[in-house]
């Protein structure tokens, strides 16, 4: 198993980094009780996916995909960047809706700690 993974560790370390960051985000979403921290965890999770996409398109020595006179020029695949621009917009809107909800929750309950919210709901 380890022998299978090792070459990838050096050649495709970017994917390993993306997975590690993703898991940090997932951990934050599960383990943190504060709703704002959960949103931050969600953002880390989403950013890791952006990193995954962008780094997958990169080529060593590649330039921007602009038509030049040099036919041998190596360029980076632009499509993942375009996709991620869209995904960033989606992530920003999700964050905005999430934070707006957190503000409303704070106004309604006076707290944004998950355990306190659960305790208040159990009392009602």
């Amino acid at each position, binding site marked *: 198993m380890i022998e299978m993974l090792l070459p990838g560790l050096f050649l495709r370390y970017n994917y390993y980094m993306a997975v590690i960051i993703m898991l940090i985000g997932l951990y934050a*979403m599960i383990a943190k009780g504060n709703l704002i921290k959960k949103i931050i965890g*969600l953002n880390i999770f989403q950013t890791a996916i952006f990193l*995954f*996409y962008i780094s997958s398109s990169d080529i060593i020595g590649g330039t921007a995909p602009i038509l030049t006179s040099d036919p041998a020029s190596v360029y980076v695949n632009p499509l993942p960047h375009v996709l991620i621009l869209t995904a960033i917009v989606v992530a920003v809107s*999700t964050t905005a*809706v999430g934070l707006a909800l957190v503000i409303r*929750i704070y106004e309604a309950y006076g707290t944004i700690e998950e355990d306190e919210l659960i305790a208040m709901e159990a009392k009602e």
Partner: protein
Amino acid sequence: MIADHLPVLVVVLPLVGAFVTLLAGWADRRLCFPIAMATTVIQFCISLLILSQVMQTGPLHYNLGNWLPPWGIEYVIDQLNGFVLVVILFLCVLTCLYSHRSTPSEIDEKKIPAFYTVLLLLVTGVCGIAVTGDLFNLYVFLEISSLAAYALVALGREKRSLVSSFTYLVMGSVSACFILLGIGHLYIVTGTLNMADLARVLPPLYGSTVIQTAFIFFIIGLSIKTALFPLHLWLPDAYRYSPSAVTVLLSTVVSKIGVYALIRILFTVFTPAFIIFEIPVMEVFCWMAAAAIIGGSVLAISQTDLKRMLAYSSVSQMGYILLGIGIADSLAVTGGILHILNHAVMKGCLFMIAGSFIYSSGIRSIEDLRGIARTMPLTAAAFVIAAASMIGIPPTVGFMSKWFIALGALESGQWIFVLVILASSLLTAVYFWKVIEYMYFREPGTVCAGTVSTARDPPAGMLVPTLVLAAACILFGIFVSIPLEVIEPFVTGILGGT
């Protein structure tokens, strides 16, 4: 001329309608409902036109901006899309009509324009998912509809709706992220995002671990969206605390479109050759669906709140659709797809009734419904019809899909799932009978006697959509050949002849 552009009109129209609604809402709040209603009605007509075109000439292809696929975004409508589009828009029209009378008592008056705007954005999202033939486009529309759904859930007056909306947002975003990861994996290996192109390029790569990982990401992501049993935890609270019109939309439109996306990805992107022969995922699917069917029913029995009981019943019914797909026999898949229509009609009706009870009497608990059939006879009668359909009593529509799924299970020799369907029908009968007994055969309790005796059937704006759906439960059960005519060509296309 305009007939060529129907597939894109069905998406653009509600998007424009949403902004018009918002602008009109500044001038006069009363303008919002007619605009939203007109938009959904026109869309429903367009969807019928599209379906009739598809039935006559075969799948429609529309290239956005005239960019040829696989480079440009392509909209593809075949029998399955057309069918799902008609079903969801039918429910959108009825929900929109219903919301006119039900929302003023549940949403602050100054939020009414926002409600209709977000509702139309949700319609944009679900229609986009239904027509698109591009994976990334599907992700974007999925997020549009989900974001609109989070906002709609949070519109409720109760403060717990905020917390349930937040939970829904976190779960929904994680599931969307999984789908995005799956798309990324597929793109890295194949270099294309067009569904038809992917289906063409993928077969030689079926052994690749990257493709298999992508598949797992898709399955988990969409299972959260459709609230498959162990991943359903966001669902009961989101259904319980949102305004009644929103609950109807969530349970009929949003959940159905998730199932549609799942079918599309399972059968069009990954062909049956992959999901049945390459990795035996369908067997796992069947067992998960069986767990959902039984688990959802058992949890529903223990509920005291009517809307929450219906929410758990939804978990169980989504299991039926997935069981039909999981058996992957042509009869069972037909039953599963038919159940998309059936469950939308039945559950839409039931949630509208739950909303009517809250509107007329403020009663949410099942036990407080004692004797309400005497003062709200039409609503109670509609409940009985829809409940009979949920249990699967012929000639209602619920019987037909269960019949097809059970036949498919027998034909492929998986008789254990027939037992699951039978057991679940009995459990369903238990929890619906409890409600019917309280409504018809109990004297009003001392606490709620006053509210029950003064309750009246809701105004026509709410009663008509409810009765239309209740009638549809019976009509589609008798004339089941109408939806079957649409579904069968698709099933034959993907699985071969019966």
